[in-house]
């Protein structure tokens, strides 16, 4: 392989190499089984942290969230749950569709492809102090570029680790979205069930208390 500086590269730097060379990067990762769980977890943690900061610290006039109402727990749960739901949905479909990727690799790919969004969030936080609402469109362009980049990385990465053709990758990504919807639906059902259970317990406790 031509660019095999990879062998010497630290696993913590490697995601940045992948960002600019997705095809080679993911291929080498797959071949050399270089997907690192610690890096994945680190990226997710960083993403959560940046997301929290983003909600809290983007300057007041450009912040679409209410900085006073940001709940760290909620952001954490949402971010982590998002990662798990995406990877779980993809894993479910791709095991059925002869995908070669392992769960850990899918996780690694999804985490790595989140890097542009993460970095753009950091940039947006800094830039928001210099920009006013009139320049918001510029920041929005940056955000769109970051999201497109993320999607591209995810597509290429999933194609590589599952050994899919481009068409099959698109199909599997569409199915992943369907899977996410199904999982969310089930989660909602479960949630309401838990709520009913909770109410039941509360009622029983109250009944006992005022017996």
């Amino acid at each position, binding site marked *: 392989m031509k660019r095999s500086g990879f062998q010497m590269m630290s696993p913590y730097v490697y995601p940045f190499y992948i960002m600019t060379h997705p095809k080679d990067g993911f291929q080498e990762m797959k071949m050399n089984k270089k997907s690192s769980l610690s890096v994945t977890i680190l990226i997710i943690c960083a993403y959560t942290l940046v997301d929290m900061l983003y909600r809290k610290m983007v300057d*007041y*006039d450009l912040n679409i969230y209410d900085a006073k109402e940001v709940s760290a727990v909620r952001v954490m749960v949402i971010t982590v749950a998002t990662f*798990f739901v995406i990877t779980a949905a993809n894993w479910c479909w791709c095991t059925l569709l002869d995908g070669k990727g392992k769960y850990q690799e899918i996780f690694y790919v999804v985490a790595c492809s989140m890097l542009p969004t993460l970095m753009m969030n950091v940039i947006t936080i800094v830039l928001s102090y210099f920009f*006013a609402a009139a320049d918001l469109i510029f920041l929005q362009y940056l955000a769109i570029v970051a999201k497109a980049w993320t999607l591209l990385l995810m597509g290429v990465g999933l194609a590589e680790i599952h050994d899919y053709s481009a068409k099959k990758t698109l199909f599997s990504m569409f199915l992943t979205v369907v899977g996410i919807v199904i999982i969310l639906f089930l989660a909602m059902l479960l*949630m309401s069930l838990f709520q009913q259970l909770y109410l039941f317990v509360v009622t029983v406790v109250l009944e006992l208390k005022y017996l």
Partner: protein
Amino acid sequence: MRRLFALLLGISLLAGLGQPANAQAAQIDKAYTYNEDDKAVPSPNSYQFKTIINAQSLGIDSFSSAQDLFVDSQDQIYLLDSGKKRVIWIDENYELVHIIDSFTWKDEPLTLADGAQGIFYREATQSLYIADTNNNRIIVCDRTGAVSQVYTKPETALLDNGLPYAPTKLVVDELGLMYVLTLNVNTGALMIDSENQFLGFYGVNAIKETLELKIEHMWRSIMNTTQNSQSEVSFQPTELANLYWSDDFFIYAVSPVTDTVESPVVKLNPVGENVLDGTEFGDSPDEEYEDVPIFTDITADAGGVFTVLDLTSGKIYQYDEECTLMTVFGGLGYQKGLYQLPVAIESNSGGDILVLDAKKNTITVMEQTYYGEKIREALFLYNDGLYEEALECWFEILRMNANYSLAYVGIAEAYLSMGEYRLAMDYFYQGGDKDGYSEAKTAMWREVLRNSFAFVAAVVVVIMLLILCYDGIKKYSKLTVQTLKKKRKGVES
């Protein structure tokens, strides 16, 4: 995996439980205002109880379901005591002047029917206009009871809906043109001239474009006439509840809040168009406070400040001409300053507000407090663009009520015009004004850029030079490396 999922669900459930419930918006005996997050927060009173006018204080037999009230520019009060079929004329010191209980027309006695609903006093001709609702007519008389005109239903095909003509409220403009609200007519006020000629409708309530309406509209374009006639959904404009003639040639109109009403409070220009920006009046309804306001009356003063009366909650809301809520007071109850069935509201030249209660049979006079006066003063200055002059007022208001978000915005605007951008940003933030914050930030950076232009320009030039020279430097450094290597080789060999 399953265990982890359950754990996550548990955490999110806990996160959901921790959310505080929305603060209750309605507090009957305490004044409040809405802060920058649209939450009800306590506030000092803008109006306080001054006195009460009732049959006892006037020394006459008691009122009986009085329906309307009018205060003229000389602060003379005309009370339509519908149950007793009379009009009571009270002077500016709240003392009885005259009771008009017998009307004569062409030397014959004329009596009002029980339940007359509207009264208006026209100063140009010194005549009282009374909407004699159940007799289906409007009578015009002087202040002694001598009737000069009786207007019955005007001749027009547009009013032939088979229902009786029942005028409820009316106002009369400078030219003697009457704007009459009648029961069962939802196409606005009737414009009737002094010859009893019907001139047209005025100020029909706009219909709000809801999703339901759009869907219904779509269906109707598909279905045929027979099917359409069977459709149960109807989109009729809401009937206007009351009118107020303001001296600046505008007519204020109120209507109950319904699903289809675009704005329950409108200020109509002579062509009948609404000139107010706001469409939200009354308490913001939430899951705890679901009572829909029924606005029954409105009054305004020269500064464009208008006050509306809500029958449902007994509350009185005061707004400035930009539809900013200035104060809320009143409520349902037996105490002084609370109402049982408030039906009419008027203001006098001294800024007092008079509220007629049809059940308590009293007129309650509420006077403005120091706080209310300050807010009015500050808002007048602010709406005229005199931000710096209003600064002192706003600080005074903040000393009395730190919850008043508009005060922060007012101060911020003042600082912005004074060039104190950093302070302006802070106050805009506290007042919850994002546009203002942005404006101040832009101004701040523009100033920074202007003051340090030389430095910025120098940095830019240096960066550009570096970029231009980049290739050269690269080549040079490569060359140096190569020569170094050669030298080293030379040394080694």
